[in-house]
């Protein structure tokens, strides 16, 4: 069975600080990787996704993530966060045998002005 680990449960940053949220998955086969964001009072939205090709994926709002197969990781990064990035971030994975997303426990990001 696949699983996803997000090591940071709550992160507090000041505006303009750089962000990196960790995500590790466990599955030996081919995976598809996702980062979702949930802003306060809103639904889950897709930030970015990786299926194949260039392991550095760029998403919306200046976010990017790097797939490192050897480390089973898919960390999310943003060079300079804004107050509007305050939200909860979820890493998720699917594989060729299972279409349903498996989520990590989420990371709550709080950006202070």
């Amino acid at each position, binding site marked *: 069975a696949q699983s996803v680990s997000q090591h940071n449960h709550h992160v507090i940053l000041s505006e303009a600080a750089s962000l990196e949220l960790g995500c590790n998955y466990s599955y030996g086969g081919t995976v598809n990787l996702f980062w979702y964001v949930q802003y306060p009072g809103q639904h889950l939205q897709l930030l970015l996704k990786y299926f194949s090709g260039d392991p550095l994926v760029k998403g919306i709002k200046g976010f990017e993530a790097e797939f490192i197969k050897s480390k089973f990781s898919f960390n999310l990064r943003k060079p300079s966060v804004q107050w509007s990035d305050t939200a909860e971030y979820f890493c998720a994975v699917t594989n060729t045998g299972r279409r349903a*997303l498996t989520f990590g426990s989420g990371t709550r990001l709080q950006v202070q002005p």
Partner: protein
Amino acid sequence: EAGVTQFPSHSVIEKGQTVTLRCDPISGHDNLYWYRRVMGKEIKFLLHFVKESKQDESGMPNNRFLAERTGGTYSTLKVQPAELEDSGVYFCASSQDGYYGYTFGSGTRLTVV
């Protein structure tokens, strides 16, 4: 394009009562998923429909939960009888290809008292 619609947005019921949650996927999306997030925990998969058929119901917690998808359109998730541990946010997602892209609804927050 209309998004995934869930209702009610909130429901408070007493232990032992019945509640039915509804999800209207994006028109034309054959794949429909139900997920649940119990407070403080990760978002967990419940089941997956392809059109009106249950493709994967391995995440359904017990037989108090019954999901249907009439005619391959909207879906309902019934909890009968509800228990305290059923409290949480129930998310629905739909996908055209079942694999690469998922659109989430805003969720139904269920509180069992």
